[in-house]
């Protein structure tokens, strides 16, 4: 298999699909039962000078079908704006649709009928239904969109600009405010228009600088649909960007200017090679606007007014609608309307009897689709009925200032009624208990009389008694040593005898009275020496021949002088006990024997290898 096998197959598959598609396209829509002609307008009412978008969609027509014939309609000028084709292949079924767009610019007020749009295909004529269009007088101030602007908001974005004259300029920009004298926090629509005469070429627009709006809260409405308007006999393409402004301070405020850079052909470079790359940049700027912001009137201000400006309506609802004693439910007040939704002030809640009330917050929902700021703000209170039975709550009042009517408006909900069911058995509230809820948070208070607990910061630590903690370690090590010694002695009886040999011999000698008869002393000395040597040599020495004993001692590496002394002591004892030897200095002999076992024990320990006893 070649390395390019898979891609080749993929290409081949693609070609098959394209071939099938082309065949289907050439032969008309596969399976398309009936061609469809749709004519749509984005609005049916438009002010004088405004425009209507007309879209003609052809679906299921053959390639031989002619262009749609859009008839002239009195009172409008019609401009083509382009077409688009959409081809889809779903489950092997090909379908195509073509859309053509037109713009109808209203010339004169009146009611007009757009005659049917016709399309011919394969000798057959298809046509749409007629559409009635209404052009409103420009002076009426009616918007070009179905959604009416807020009172005082002037023309909605997307509506035709109010300019009626162009002064012959080919490319210029203007700022337009819906009102230039407003109340504090009243909604204004600010529109930036760029007028381009239809015969003027603009390659590109860049570096848009929105107008400065210091002193206003600004909400973006974005770029609006492009329009065509006739001004002073010339047709203009109008581009628009719009905002909603809310003044945040009173006085004379300045808006703008705004500007944009247009890339236009450079007419100074004429010649054979002149192209679209020969362009120059023209900054198109507006003039500034001055807006006078008036304070809200003091007269007639309701006591519950909290600064809300606009046009609103209110409603209130419980959730859940049924209440039970001791159980929480939510009461939501909705303030819905047009204005600065974010700054709608909370109502002054009445003091309701039979309820514990907890503030549960607020939520904002803003909609700018209609070319102005509208929406709703909800205020929620959590209520806990403290008693059962019917409850009628005092209505909630809400006041705002309506700048269109230039007066304060007070709204009130209807009386709110609740039928509170008795508390469930054992539930909070059933026995007069109450929830404790935090109403504020702060740090706890300082501690008093803390002087007694103060400590020297630099003197912290064990203060020199750290060695106390060595005691358990040393003690445990000692116990371990003790345990090891006992174990070793238990394992090795010879070692145990050796360990105790000196002690036993010394005890025996110490118990002797030097003034005792010589035979008794000699017997004890011999017994002590022989016992000591038996323990050390792990062999019975009594009865051993002295020559053998000497050999044993020398084999045990006992020093020669001590061996001689041992043999001398034993010979003296034998003489005293069995022979005719004189008594001699018994006390010296006894002391000598005591010293001898000590020295012998030390000497033998030195030469002993292995575990020292």
């Amino acid at each position, binding site marked *: 298999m070649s390395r390019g096998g898979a891609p080749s197959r993929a290409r081949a598959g693609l070609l098959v699909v394209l071939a099938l598609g082309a065949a289907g396209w050439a032969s008309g829509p596969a399976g398309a039962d009936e061609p469809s002609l749709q004519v749509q307008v984005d609005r049916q009412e438009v002010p004088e000078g405004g425009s209507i978008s007309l879209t003609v969609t052809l679906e299921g027509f053959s390639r031989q079908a002619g262009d749609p014939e859009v008839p002239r309609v009195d009172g409008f000028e019609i401009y083509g704006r382009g077409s688009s084709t959409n081809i889809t292949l779903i489950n092997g079924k090909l379908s195509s649709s073509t859309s053509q767009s037109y713009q109808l610019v209203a010339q004169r007020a009146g009611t007009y009928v757009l005659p049917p749009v016709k399309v011919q295909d394969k000798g057959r004529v298809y046509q749409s239904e007629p559409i009635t269009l209404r052009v409103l007088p420009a002076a009426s101030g009616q918007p070009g969109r179905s959604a009416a602007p807020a009172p005082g908001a002037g023309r909605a974005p997307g509506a035709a600009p109010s300019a009626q004259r162009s002064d012959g300029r080919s490319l210029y920009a203007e700022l337009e405010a819906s009102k230039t004298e407003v109340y504090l926090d009243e909604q204004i629509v600010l529109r930036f228009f760029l007028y381009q005469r239809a015969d003027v070429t603009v390659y590109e627009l860049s570096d848009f600088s929105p107008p400065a709006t210091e002193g206003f809260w600004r909400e973006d409405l974005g770029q609006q649909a492009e329009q065509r308007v006739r001004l002073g006999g010339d047709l203009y393409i109008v581009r628009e960007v719009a905002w909603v402004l809310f003044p945040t301070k009173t006085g004379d405020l300045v808006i703008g200017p705004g500007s944009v850079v247009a890339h236009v052909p450079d007419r100074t470079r004429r010649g054979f090679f002149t192209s679209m790359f020969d362009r120059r940049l023209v900054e198109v700027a507006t003039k500034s606007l001055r807006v006078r912001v008036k304070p809200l009137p003091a007269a007639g201000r309701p006591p519950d007014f909290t600064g809300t400006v606009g046009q609103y309506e209110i409603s209130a609802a419980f959730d859940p609608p049924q209440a039970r004693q001791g159980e929480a439910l939510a009461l939501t007040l909705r303030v819905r309307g047009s204005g600065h939704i974010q700054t709608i002030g909370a109502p002054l809640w009445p003091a309701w009897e039979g309820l514990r009330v907890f503030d549960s917050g607020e939520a904002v929902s803003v909609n700018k689709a209609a070319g102005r700021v509208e929406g709703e703000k909800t205020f929620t209170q959590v209520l806990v009925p403290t008693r059962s039975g019917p409850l009628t709550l005092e209505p909630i009042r809400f006041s705002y200032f309506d700048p269109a009517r230039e007066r304060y408006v007070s709204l009130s909900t209807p009386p709110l009624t609740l039928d509170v069911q008795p508390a469930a058995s054992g539930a909070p509230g059933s026995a007069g208990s109450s929830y404790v809820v935090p109403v504020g948070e702060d740090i706890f208070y300082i501690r008093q009389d*803390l002087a*007694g607990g103060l400590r020297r910061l630099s003197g912290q630590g064990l203060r020199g*008694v750290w060695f106390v903690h060595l005691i358990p370690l040393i*003690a*445990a090590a000692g*116990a371990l040593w003790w*345990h090891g010694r006992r174990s070793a002695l238990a394992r090795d009886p010879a070692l145990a005898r050796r360990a105790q040999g000196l002690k036993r011999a010394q005890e025996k000698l110490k118990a002797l009275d030097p003034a005792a008869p010589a035979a008794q002393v000699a017997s004890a000395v011999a017994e002590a020496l022989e016992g000591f040597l038996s323990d050390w040599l792990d062999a019975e020495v009594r009865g051993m021949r002295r020559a053998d004993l000497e050999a044993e001692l020398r084999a045990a590496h006992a020093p020669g002088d001590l061996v001689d002394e041992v043999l001398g002591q034993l010979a003296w004892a034998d003489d005293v006990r069995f022979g005719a030897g004189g008594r001699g200095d018994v006390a010296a002999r006894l002391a000598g024997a005591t010293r001898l076992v000590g020295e012998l024990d030390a000497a033998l320990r030195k030469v002993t290898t292995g575990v020292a006893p």
Partner: protein
Amino acid sequence: MRTARRAAPRGLRTFLAAALVSAQAGGLLLGAVGPAEAAPQPPQGVVEAVRQAEEAYAAGRPEQAAEIYRGVLAAGWGSADLYYNLGCASFKAGQIGWAAGFFEEARRLAPRDADIRHNLRIVLAQKRDRVQEEGPSWLLGLLTGLLDSYAPVDVVHWLVALVWVVCLVAGVHWGIGGRARAVTRRVLPVLAVLGVLAVAALGLKAYQVASAPSGVIVAAEAQVLTGPRVGETVQFVLHEGTFVHLGRTAGAWREVWLSEQMRGWVPGESLMVLHPARWLP
């Protein structure tokens, strides 16, 4: 022939065991609570200063109270309660950064004190900077979280106490033997496990202490520069109450860092340096 058992008199063994138990009991007490006689009481001047600070705070003069409490600290006297009061006074005086630092000092000395934790939470809720720190793995985080309620000195106490107990049991096991050994033979493995846990706790605590911030921003706004001199590029800006890790020192400048990428230098006066953890009682 004599046996080895006769070589170890019962009287000596009893004496040794009794001495061991007595020494261990006394040592355990010392290790657990420390030598009471070694804690001197503060002089009268310090006691009077603390009283004046309490009066100033109660009279709504938190700045003055904070000043007096700082004086007590400067005199070398302190406690978790003093840091707590200093945090309260600083907070009421509007010094969020200092308050956060002092409450953190108090928390490190008394980590299970609910009031300190509450106040620290209140203060930290008011700081501007929200720092995204890369935490440890969930297991390590769980374990260090468990240890968060204990100061390093607490863990040292556990270990010391455990050493005493182990030595006591070992002393009984090896020094006395007999029937007691049947009991100690069962206890010693348990103690061995506890010992492993205590050593692990000590290691985790050491990790926790090493990874804890060692400073807090006390200036309202501190520009973190790329180098320790005026004119270096400002990398980011920190605000009072933000805990930072401290690095090198260069003159009056201090290196701070929040993460591997977020590090730089700030003037020393914009920082409160927290005391290192105390490991000994």
